[in-house]
């Protein structure tokens, strides 16, 4: 049991987090909730990469006097990649919020069924 928690458990958590995204996007009615589901999905992917770089007992990979072997440090590359992915996620959120502001201003509603009804009226 403990072995499960230290090895595969985190992947199951990430898997569930990721599935929350499509679930929310498909089944939630409120557009802000859909956006939040999208964010959760992106965070799941970021977590997945970070876990790839993780190592039991690994140290931060900074250059110090008396370097140990490569085996002592965690892999910094996934972290560097995920910095970019975080920025991407931020930008996506920003763009979607801007779009939602426009939608709210014009149609006065962010519930999808009501929004579709009002769109068809005009």
């Amino acid at each position, binding site marked *: 049991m403990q072995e499960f928690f230290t090895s595969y458990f985190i992947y199951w958590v990430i898997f569930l987090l990721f599935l929350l995204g499509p679930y929310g*996007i498909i089944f939630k009615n409120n557009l802000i909730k859909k956006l939040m589901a999208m964010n959760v999905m992106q965070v799941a992917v970021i977590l997945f*990469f970070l876990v790839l770089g993780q190592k039991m007992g690994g140290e931060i990979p900074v250059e110090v006097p008396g370097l140990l072997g490569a085996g002592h440090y965690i892999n910094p590359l996934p972290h560097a*990649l995920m910095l*970019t992915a975080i920025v991407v996620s931020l930008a996506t959120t920003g*763009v979607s919020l801007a*779009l939602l502001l426009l939608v709210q201003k*014009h149609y006065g509603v962010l519930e999808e069924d009501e929004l579709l009804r009002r*769109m068809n009226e005009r």
Partner: protein
Amino acid sequence: MKEQLPALLIVVPLVTALLSPLVAYFSTRLLRGLHLTALATSFACAVGTLIHALTEGTWHYRFGDWAPPWGIEYVIDPLSGVMAVLISLISVLVLLYAGPFLAEEGWLKKGIYYALYTLLTTGLLGMVITGDVFNLYVFLEISSLAAYALIASGGYKATVAAFRYVLIGTIGASLYLLGVGYLYAVTGSLNMADLAEKLQPLLAANSQAVLIAVLLIMVGMGIKMALFPLHGWLPDAYTYTSPAAIPFISGVMTKVMIYVLLRYCFFIFGAMNGVLPAVLEIVGWLAAAGIILASVMAIAQTDFRRMLAYSSVAQIGYIALGMAIGNYYGLIGAVLHILNHAVMKSCLFLVAGGVKWKTGEHAIAKYAEISRRMPVTMGVFLLGALSMIGIPPTAGFFSKWYLILGALDNQQWLYIVVIIVSSLLNAVYFFRVIEQAYLRKAEGEAKPEETLASVEIAIKNRGPELPYVMLVPIVVLGAGILLLGVCNNVIVTNILHYALPGGGL
């Protein structure tokens, strides 16, 4: 200078895009000139790199001179060279065409439009010439974000469509990124050439992690390229968008996503390897179903742009079908159809935008007698429509011909039936428009249903034809349709032949 061409190809439009709101503040005229110059420079670089790739072999450009697989490299082989030329050419033409649509906007809106448009071009160019799978993701998001904002510029319905596209597009991109994560976990590499070397034995041994990665990347890119049944975002997004942006988005963006899939399937995974034939067969079936269903949907549309959007889904199916056929002729057909469809669909959307500019209308029913008012534009439309149907000597015929040859070689009779039936369906929906434009008389009576706005537009934009800045791109792309058709043999033997995996089998 010459050895820096691949970097300039990206850097010039990127820097221009970032400068654009600042320049717009001082002079919008300068802004337009600057962007046209930047994209034309990009086009020149793309042609230069393509010639280099054809004469001296694949060009590996190292960023900061870091050797791959650690550094990011740009790889330009004939296939990516052709794509880069295609993207930058259509980008320049559509930007030229967009001028009159923006004439009345303020400097800020112009600045933002130009910035987004050039960023979109940068992203797409980056996707085709990068040799690094994560770098590809970054460019994918650059182009997608720019496209979301551009699509939203078409009004409130477009904003809702754009939001939906953001959600669905992000699912696609996240799936892709997750797939890249699996590939990195298995191989420890992000460089395409290095990945290919390390992955192919794993894939042949049916490694489960690689299998999941393949599926994630296929589905992710399938969403991005609007492969049936993942095309839900496309019709709304294409229908409501501003006519200043949609010809470029519709013509090129989904094609680049297919290019990525092609790159993965045939250059990284290896098409005959492990699970790939089964996956490609599923793609083929989906494509075949998509071709027929989307064509039927297109017949049912009354809005010209929506009809073109559904027809896009069908045409993307053709390219996917070519990949599924997977032999020499099939791949030639797929790549040729990427070129043809990019030119045809951009051209048709340019015509749709032109008609909208002239009359304020998009409904097919309002196209009556339009051929008399805009003879050149509608002449090009006729050419584009014939090419979509696949009548020689227009471009569309030849790519379908290669697809059929490929299917014959593999004895996939069903695919042949699908291609022929869908050509008939194409004929049905395009002849409806042709009939309206050429044969139907406009009703002489007052038209009560005509909105005030469209009357105003019609009065404002009177005159025999579109202005030259709009007409020239339309005519150039129309000539491109003919040229791609007549010279298809030259293009295939001299360029596309070397663009296939293994440099032409």
